[in-house]
């Protein structure tokens, strides 16, 4: 089997609520299509509501397409190594999109859902609702109440990043959610060490489940020290410097985190996620999958979660209007707060080709 073409269809995404002041309300996603001489096609989405595919697509075509043209799509490991070697020319998102499309072809060639091809571990996983970064305490308490009512069992706060106020938000969310609910805090690299410790001690008291990214992503020494001074598990490495899965090593060696973390966009595909999961497992740690930034990535990642033991949750980042797009049947969380494995062959996403055609902005090849 040979790859005969790679195209990117850029399509507009409108009406995105601004995440930060000055954010654009529009973005573009890219439908990446890899075609083969045997008629099999693999798909991936490039970009997110925050990182328009317009920026990544030209580099993908210029630097990565030539590496895969004419190649056997089942030579994934060789191709991933070669794609990865271009990471100074292109973004990890672009590498990730091609790798994702190659896995789609692989599982289609195998005639199996991706999680079966990888070797399934389970058929369902609990989801947690992961707030947008908001600025008012009431928005968080209303939101957690809403999701709890619908059967969800866990909620993660992306707080206002004013540490003293963040503690108030965390206390209020715990109060509303009650003692049996699972709240987490993701402080998005925003504190200095003294505040990271104060907030950490406070949410330890509030029995939070994990404490994510309190310090800047490259402050390995700070994380080591913080981890010694806190009982609550610390989660780092989503954006560990270097970005690749080989950048996890010092975090393990120095005991700087209680989890490894990443997703298709930030680590460069499904391939490094599988490797990172294996690496974490060897240290008896979880690799907690980060949301994938677009609908198709999230569906692909759900397959990977179904094929591994050491990931506890699916992250569902809010709001839906900024995260779900381009798929006619997106991931649904049931009334018990669970997301379920897909039985469709390949990644099995129901791509909304009609809508994509309607919203098409450009086609690159």
């Amino acid at each position, binding site marked *: 089997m040979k790859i005969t073409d790679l195209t990117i269809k850029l399509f507009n995404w409108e009406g995105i609520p601004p995440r930060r002041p000055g954010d654009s309300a529009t973005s573009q996603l890219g439908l990446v299509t890899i075609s083969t001489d045997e008629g099999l096609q693999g798909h991936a989405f490039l970009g997110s509501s925050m990182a328009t595919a317009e920026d990544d697509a030209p580099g993908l075509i210029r630097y990565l397409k030539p590496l895969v043209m004419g190649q*056997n799509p*089942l*030579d*994934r*490991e*060789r191709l*991933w*190594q070669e794609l990865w070697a271009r990471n100074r020319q292109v973004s990890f998102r672009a590498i990730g999109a091609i790798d994702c499309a*190659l896995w789609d072809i*692989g599982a289609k*060639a*195998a*005639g*199996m859902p991706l999680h*079966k*091809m*990888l*070797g*399934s*571990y*389970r058929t369902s996983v609990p989801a947690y609702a992961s707030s947008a970064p908001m600025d008012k305490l009431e928005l968080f308490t209303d939101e957690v109440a809403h999701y709890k009512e619908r059967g969800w069992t866990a909620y993660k706060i992306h707080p206002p990043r004013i540490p003293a106020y963040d503690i108030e938000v965390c206390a209020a969310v715990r109060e509303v959610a009650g003692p049996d609910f699972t709240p987490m805090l993701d402080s998005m690299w925003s504190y200095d060490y003294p505040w990271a410790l104060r907030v950490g001690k406070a949410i330890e008291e509030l029995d939070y489940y994990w404490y994510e990214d309190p310090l800047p992503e490259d402050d390995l020494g700070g994380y080591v020290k913080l981890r010694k001074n806190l009982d609550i598990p610390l989660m780092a490495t989503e954006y560990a410097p270097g970005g690749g*899965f*080989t950048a*996890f*090593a010092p975090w*393990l*060696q120095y005991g700087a985190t209680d989890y490894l973390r990443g997703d298709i966009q930030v680590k460069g595909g499904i*391939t490094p996620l*599988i*490797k*990172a999961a*294996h*690496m974490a*497992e*060897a*240290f*008896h740690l979880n690799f907690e999958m980060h949301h994938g930034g677009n609908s198709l990535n999230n569906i692909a990642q759900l397959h990977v979660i179904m*094929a*591994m*033991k050491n990931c506890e949750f699916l992250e569902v980042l809010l709001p839906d209007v900024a995260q779900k797009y381009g798929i006619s049947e997106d991931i649904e969380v049931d009334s018990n707060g669970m997301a379920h494995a897909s039985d469709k062959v390949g990644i099995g996403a129901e791509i909304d080709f009609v809508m994509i055609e309607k919203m098409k902005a450009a086609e690159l090849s």
Partner: protein
Amino acid sequence: MKITDVTLTLFAWNDIPATKYGQLSQEFSGTSQMGLVTITTDEGVEGHAFLGSASRGANLDGQTLIDYLKPVVMGQDPLDRERLYQDLQKRYRNTTPRVIGAVDIALWDIAGKIAGLPIHQLLGSYRQSVPAYASSAVLDSPEAYGEQAAQYKADGWAAYKIHPPTISAKGDIAVCEAVREAVGDDYRIMLDSTWAYNYYEALAVGKAAERLGFYWYEDPLADDDMYNYIKLREHMDIPIMATEYSPGGFTAYAPWLVSQATDYLRGDVAVKGGITAIYKTAHLAEGFHLNFEIHHGGNSLNNVANTHVIMAIKNCEYFEVLLPSGAQKYGLIEDIDPDENGLVYAFNEPGLGAKIDFELIERMKTAVLS
């Protein structure tokens, strides 16, 4: 799809030449029992693996397969490999990694057959061939090692590894010198001292191997002697290879990495518990920019399983061919044999893709456990 049966067909292996790999492993010869593991499904697809080796009969492990592992997989979907692997691993105190490995391999064989793909493509291929090295048994004299190494060099193989007598450090150094002398300065040679030395012997032999330009220095110290591996590694310039038999399974490599006690990870489908375990180990090693150098598999079909993983990873440089053939190759119609360029090639038929000699197995059958 459901697993409907697991059987172990024991078959005799006769005329095994007297063979020894070091003082720690006893000399073996004559007869052993191999086991053909067959996992059957309700859709007619069967998966296979071999259990046992020339030095350790499958009869010794076989009953634990039936008593402890068969109940774990019966009635299950063979494509639920990760769940089954985790469940099988939990039984490791009742059985051996060899048996867990055999079940895991047979499950991968089924998956590849269902997918219509060789296992290396199911994993995602990296290459189609890999250089092989000849890996000696213990020989009678330094000259015998020198002659054998020169022969493999002449045959085009990429490298030669010595399993020395391990009777004395001095004697082993003499073997290393004889081999270097016989192959010249440019040929790649390695030393595997099979856990034989104390620290001072390991340092003395290691310094000699360093002086002689050895490519790696494998298992000089006891398999659990991490304390002295760390120190030895600090004193050596040539790479140290440990962890083939480090205590525990795939999750026991971590301290060797954290403490920087080895330059490679090491293992195979038999000693670490299957394709799943070694595939994970390769990724673990890659995360630390290390090679996972896959060890020979102890029997012919295990070596095929190893080959698939090697074809799907970047960080393994060589395929190990343990000598002599008479003590390592049995039960396949066509065994792995490096070509005139010293290369071993991928199996490209669905599943394991090796031709099992079912006729021979039937003829030599001694028992069927089920």
